[in-house]
């Protein structure tokens, strides 16, 4: 059984494998950086370590429906903060619950996707491939921000 952390962006649910997740934080005040892409919110200090913040809502072109905004810090492979509308739960899925991604899915390019997971009878969570979500070029940019 593989565990995922389930969070919400707008009215969609997404999942990230728990192996990549470092911790979940309350949204702190970010230092905004000039001449950066729109989805780069800024940089935060997590216990003396500079972590860039990426607004996934903007990255995926979704609207914002914030309830309990949180920052999910992931390793990809450097620590990066993902700003989400709400962290739902930590869920373990059996292989039967998981399926491969369709060709086109709601404007999100399938290269970001790892697959789909059935949460219960009604809901489906989109499982994200974090290496794909943030490209290597972006990775370099982000690591430049850290220094």
């Amino acid at each position, binding site marked *: 059984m593989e*565990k995922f*952390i389930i969070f919400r962006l707008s009215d969609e649910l997404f999942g990230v494998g728990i192996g990549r997740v470092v911790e979940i934080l*309350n949204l702190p005040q970010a230092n905004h950086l000039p001449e950066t892409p729109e989805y780069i919110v800024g940089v935060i200090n997590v216990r003396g370590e500079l972590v860039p913040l990426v607004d996934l809502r903007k990255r995926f072109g979704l609207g914002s429906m914030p309830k*309990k905004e949180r920052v999910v810090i992931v390793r990809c492979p450097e620590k990066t903060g993902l700003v989400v509308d709400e962290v739902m739960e*930590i869920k373990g899925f059996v292989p039967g619950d998981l399926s491969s991604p369709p060709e086109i899915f709601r404007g999100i390019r399938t290269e970001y996707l790892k697959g789909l997971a059935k949460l219960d009878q009604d809901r489906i969570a989109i499982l994200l491939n974090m290496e794909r979500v943030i490209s290597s070029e972006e990775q370099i940019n982000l690591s430049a921000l850290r220094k």
Partner: protein
Amino acid sequence: MERPDADMMYGFSFKKKISRNFILILLATLVVCQGALWVWVLHMQKTSHGRDLESRVRGVSLLLSGVASQAFTASDFGDIDHAFQSLPDSDKNIISVRALDANGTTISQRQLRGEPENQGKGGFFFLPATGTLSTPVISASGGREGSIEVHYSAADANSQIRRALLIFPLAQMSVLVLIAFIAFYFFQRKIGYPINGINQKLGALAKGDLTVEIEAGGADEMGSITEGLRHLKENLGITIAQLSQSSSDVGMAIRQISKVFSSVNTGVQEQGSAVSDIFMALQKAGEFQDSVKSGTEELLEFSSENVTSLLEVRATADEIAASTGKLFQAVDDSYAAVEELTAAAGKISENAQNALSSIEQTSASVEEVGSSVKEIEKGAAESSKLADQVRKAAAEEGVIVVAEAIEKMEQIAEKIKFSSDIVSRLGTRSKDIGGILSIIRNVTEQTNLLSLNAAILAAQAGEYGKGFSVVADEIHALSERTAASTKEIEGIVKTISKEISQTVDSIGQMLLLLESGMEIFYKAGTSTAGIVTAAQDSAKMAHTIQRATEEQGRALQQITLAVEHIRDMVFEMARATGEQSKGTGFLLDKMSEVREIAEATKMGTYGQAQGTKHISENLETANERISGMKKIIDKQQQSSKEVVSSVEQIQVIGLRTLRDTEEISYSLTTLQAEVEALSREVQKFRLNGKVHNIQAK
């Protein structure tokens, strides 16, 4: 008025003729006009001669000045002398010429002839005898070099004017004389002769000769005058003929009237003598009547004496009768008085009885009033008591109750305010609870986050972290439940908060209501105080009424006593009047006896008086007859006197008539004389046809 002599009037001398006067006026007018014309013409002639002379002299002067100008320029004055010498001697007008330089020095001069003898200064008709004309000498450059003076004579012009002065009037005079003769001839022929003819006719008419024939004139004014004269003559003839006729008629009438009047005169005189006779006869009748009257008067006097003595007897009898009558009357009166007295006594008794009964009624009424007063008194006492009770109740209970109520209300208000404060505090507390709840929520969230992180760590720890994962899950579940509970508490706190605010509102309203209630209570208190005052007043009034009725009761008792006393007195009086009534009845009986006796006496006296009266009456009748006779005689005398005065009046009237007729006769005679004079005057006119000769006889 004497008429002027006919020849003088109608055969006028030349001096007085119209034609001469007319010609003279005409001539005078012409002479004046011609004279004025003559003067003007001569004056004009003088002016023209003067101008003529001046122009000639000026011509010479200008010529000489032209020569002099050249001479001055050349400074050779020989030319001037030469020019002077060359002037012709034939020109009689120029006496001398002279050339002067600029300084007025004579350069050259020539005397043609001597100065004229006559040195006249001229006038209205004549020019001045001599004159001098000075002409300046102008050089070529325009400067004044000197002057030429020409001295001239006007003798020639003046002699011409003098000739005209003589010839002109002579010619005028001859023309005027000729005009005068022609005018006279035509005037005489056209106007003078016809007027003469008319004059002669008028003279004849004035003399009274109406037979003259007046022939019709021409169509001019003279013709209309002759026509008018002819009409006048004819009308005059007719008028005179009529006048003649009328005067003869009047004469006849006057003669007849005169005759009638002489006969009237005779009649009036006869009438006068007849009236005188009647007058005499009447006077004689009057004397006879007087003697009759004196006889009758004597008879009347005698008869009157008899009557007087009888009347005296009768008067005595009458007096006796009257005395008896009076006596009887007195008795009668006494009787009547006694009767009235009796009736009055009866009435008094009756009245006393009535009074008694009414007093008894009054007494009963007073008693009734007394009883009703007692009832009133009782009522008043009761109402007083009631009022007292009311007052007491209102004052003691009402006021106290109201005061207590107000006090209670105030306590309630205080309590409510206290409750309100508590509730308000409660509201504050619930807000505090809200604050605590938010802290709890934060903690819960934090716990939730921690549980999540724990779960992550547990998951990453793999198999080793399984137990920790369970704990993390539990913590997560706990945090979830806490969050739910917190939410519920939040809802409850919100509801409480709302309810508290509602409660505060309702308490506020309650306070308001309470205040208004208290106000009402205050009002009730005031009203109660008013009621107390009113009740006290009514009690006071009831007391007063009670006192008054008590006094009234006492007064009524006194009245009752008084009425009873009056009743007793009236009863006594009634009894007394009853007795008096009996006494007067006895008196009445006695009086009737006296009355009977008096009546018998009265009857006797009356008979005596009756006899005397009869005699007296007879005598009076006789006397009356005599006096009637006297009256008749008097009347007769009066009548005869009136007749006499009438006759006298007739006499007077007759005399007056006589005088009037005489006056009329005289007037008629005068009239006749005048008519005769008129006739004579009319006869003087000689008329065509018949001639009226009326002679007065």
